């Protein structure tokens, strides 16, 4: 009887592994859940910063909204935007919109996020998303990738920061234009944009 039970257990666990394997192949980023549509409310979440202190999205959101940017320490594209992201944070903090960085790369531990932010003089809060739960929830695929929310938590922009990694070639400041429209009480004209970036390294 006991033996049968053990066999059943082994079989059951094989079934679980098989299911996990199927789920694992479902990690194809092409099959990720679609990101929330523009206009939907982003539910509050909590994540620790690089020092381990927990923050909620709500607590970090400014009186006029927030900009969530998925960042990386090793991605050259994300790194090309370090100065621009810091400038964005400085420029919009005074306007009541806070920049929140999220690092979801499973290859980049909190200690690295902390030292990287120090070296690159990033002063905005960077949260560590272990297990890429928030990246999954927001359907984030690459770094850098930005989400702007209004004070009520509604998504108003999702996509690139601007059109070029090289500051000399910027011709479309999509994110800033969207933020300025939000601040001006106008509907956002261009609610997103595509640009090449590094794939977020998710847990397998």
């Amino acid at each position: 009887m006991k033996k049968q039970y053990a066999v059943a257990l082994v079989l059951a666990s094989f079934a679980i592994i098989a299911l996990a394997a199927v789920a694992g192949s479902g990690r194809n980023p092409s099959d990720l859940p679609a990101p929330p549509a523009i206009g939907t409310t982003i539910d509050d979440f909590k994540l620790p910063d690089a020092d381990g202190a927990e923050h909620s999205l709500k607590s970090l959101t400014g009186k006029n909204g927030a900009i969530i940017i998925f960042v990386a320490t090793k991605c050259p594209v994300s790194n090309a935007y370090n100065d621009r992201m810091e400038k964005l944070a400085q420029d919009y903090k005074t306007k009541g919109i806070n920049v929140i960085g999220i690092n979801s790369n499973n290859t980049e531990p909190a200690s690295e996020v902390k030292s990287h932010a120090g070296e690159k003089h990033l002063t905005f809060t960077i949260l560590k998303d272990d297990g890429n739960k928030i990246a999954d929830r927001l359907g984030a695929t690459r770094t850098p990738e930005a989400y702007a929310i209004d004070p009520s938590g509604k998504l108003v922009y999702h996509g690139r920061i601007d059109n070029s990694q090289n500051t000399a070639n910027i011709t479309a400041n999509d994110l800033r234009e969207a933020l300025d429209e939000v601040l001006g009480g106008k509907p956002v004209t261009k609610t997103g944009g595509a640009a090449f970036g590094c794939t977020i390294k998710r847990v397998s």
Partner: protein
Amino acid sequence: MRLRFSIFLVVLAIVWAGAGIAAPAQTPSAGAAPSPHRPPGFLVLDGVDTTDHYSPEIREIDLDGLKKLLLRDPKDTRPLLINFWATWCDGCREEFPDLVKIDNDYRAKGLNFLSVTLDEVADKTKAVDFLKEMKATMRVVLLNVNDPEPAIHAVDEKWDGALPATFLYDREGKLVFKYFGKIKPAELRAAIDKAVGSKQ
């Protein structure tokens, strides 16, 4: 009951550990013997391998050039595999040896492989050096556009530009496989097998 549950946990842990150990072994082609098929571009002259002297050419294309490549020559009915990459992209560099093997294994079976680098024009030599190091001989173009968005959406409306990205079109030009992120070679090979119509 508690004992049974702990037995369950132990068994589960053992099986899981086993799966964890087995997993890396399933990663195909790591350290596999090089393909006996020599792609064109590699010459053996008087017994001297000139591989080191092979210099890949990278043609620059713009948005229209990319669109033309996507539309294809109607007379060319080969399945088309397109991989977007850049030397600055870790995942791209990591998957490249598998792509070179796929190119070598499937070229004779009628696969048309197009490699598109997103490196800056100023970094073209970096891309050339990387291709040399990889002994890559597939067709490579450099997409030179100021605004990447129209190009990204010309390929796939659902793609937001995350690299690497891989797309496979069948003989009729229908998109039959796509992958954002580092490819799983076995999955891609299975899709190519189907597209080239070979029986595994």
